[in-house]
């Protein structure tokens, strides 16, 4: 059984069909790419997966559980974390707090514990803290723990966003255009980072990306969609030479 099974997924916005009859099944431990022209519906698929939209039709089954009807924070609790196409950090909260707060789902105490500072509270906070610091160390962010994200360079913000998603200890990590806005050198770093995360934490990653360099060097399998429907899928090499993909998406580099 695959980790994520999406079947017959359709999403309509008014008259517009952003995703139509989309199917995918992502195996545990894989690193899969999702590409396609602008407006093809990639982000929409991510939004559906993370529960931000309720699908018009179709099913999303994660880890054997149909996520329909769950609120986003519940889905995240199941183990799906994501980043955003435009960075959405909590910009006026320190990097450390960003990573703490995103562990809400496993907090395990309630308001009264917070008021009374019960044992439960103290233990939970200690757990949250240690996870946060470990992660900061692992991702080379320790020095920035008390900085506000808005004061960090763009590349680091991306890294913090990924760290925040990782603090959920997800089984599946969705990355929406992680390389957008990064310069070439930073892109190299990113490729290394994602690869490392994939191996080190042994998690499943599904990512959207327009920079072919990133997709091709990371993904073992790629799915290409246009107008909300799959037009091609396969290994990077296969995709790169697929004429429909070239026509609809890759274009020719000659300027």
């Amino acid at each position: 059984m695959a980790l994520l099974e999406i079947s017959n997924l359709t999403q309509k916005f008014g008259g517009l069909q952003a995703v139509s009859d989309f199917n995918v099944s992502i195996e545990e431990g894989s690193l899969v790419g999702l590409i396609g022209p602008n407006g093809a519906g990639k982000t929409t698929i991510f939004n559906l997966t993370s529960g931000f939209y309720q699908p018009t039709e179709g099913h999303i089954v994660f880890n054997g559980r149909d996520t329909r009807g769950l609120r986003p924070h519940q889905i995240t609790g199941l183990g799906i974390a994501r980043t955003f196409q435009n960075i959405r950090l909590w910009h006026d909260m320190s990097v450390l707090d960003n990573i703490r707060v995103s562990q809400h789902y496993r907090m395990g105490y309630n308001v009264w514990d917070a008021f009374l500072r019960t044992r439960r509270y103290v233990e939970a906070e200690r757990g949250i803290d240690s996870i946060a610091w470990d992660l900061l160390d692992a991702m080379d962010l320790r020095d920035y723990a008390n900085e506000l994200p808005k004061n960090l360079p763009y590349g680091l913000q991306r890294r913090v966003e990924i760290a925040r998603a990782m603090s959920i200890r997800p089984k599946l990590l969705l990355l929406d255009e992680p390389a957008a806005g990064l310069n070439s050198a930073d892109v190299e770093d990113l490729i290394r980072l994602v690869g490392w995360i994939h191996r080190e934490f042994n998690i499943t990653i599904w990512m959207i990306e327009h920079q072919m360099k990133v997709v091709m060097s990371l993904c073992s399998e790629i799915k290409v969609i246009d107008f909300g429907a799959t037009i091609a899928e396969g290994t990077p090499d296969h995709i790169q030479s697929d004429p429909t993909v070239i026509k609809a998406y890759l274009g020719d580099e000659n300027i």
Partner: protein
Amino acid sequence: MEFLIQNIFNALQWGSFYALIALGYTLVYGVLLLINFAHGDIFMVGAYIAFFVTAFLLGDFGGMASGALPGWAILALAVPLTMALTSCVGVTLERIAYRPLRRKGAHRLYVVITALMCGLVLENGNLALLGASRKKFPELVDKAIWTFGEVSVTNLKVAVIVAAVAVFLILQTIVTRTKIGMAMRGISYDKFAIPLMGIPVDSIIVFTFVLGSGFAGLAGLLFAMSYPILEPYMGALIGWKAFIAAVVGGIGDIRGAFLGGFLLGFIEIGVAAVFPSTLRDLLAFSILLVILWWKPTGLFGVAKTTKI
């Protein structure tokens, strides 16, 4: 039946004032996302300006020979003068209180609080300078009461309703049909990019305040004619309620403000006509709450779609 018709007229008149004030709220909001809490007080200032303008024209301050002008001529002069002078008040507030804050990049709500404070200054400044006695607005045009069976309508009531509709149409045209209107809507979404379109931001904002305050002045004049007792706090309550009306209509939307104003007028008059009037606020606000529950962004408001 006649009871009903009479009350419809009552509601139309009362709703017209809400609508007129709500339009001003919405206009400024639609541009700056600023809840201009001083708007109710600008309306009050408008009424006072109207008072002084007419008093001047009537010759009270030795402005003109007494009785030199007939009432309708005074009214015809008072309308543009009041609107112009009230605009100046609105623009002044914008210049000295709001703009510097905007320039400093203050949080939006600090501007809102400043607006609240400006309202208080206007109210109490008026009280301190003009004294606590109320002012009686003179009768400019002879009152005509038209009676149909049990239903009575005055010429003034009709004028008020017509004015509200006219102001609505004018504003709706400006905001939806003209480039300046597009610019006004654009500013609210992204102030940064407006100058990049070659649009002078400050002029658009000033223009908005001119429009909003000008029509608040008109509303003040009409209100003073309909309810001829002026006091410094006259704008506070009606201002708050008009703001609520504007939001229920969908704040930032001209149609919403217009409809919301009348809706509130009808609910208030309706409740007072059927129930003891003390229940008016309770029922009126409960109804509005239900409307917002049903449409969380008001009747015409479009939810800002969060793209993620």
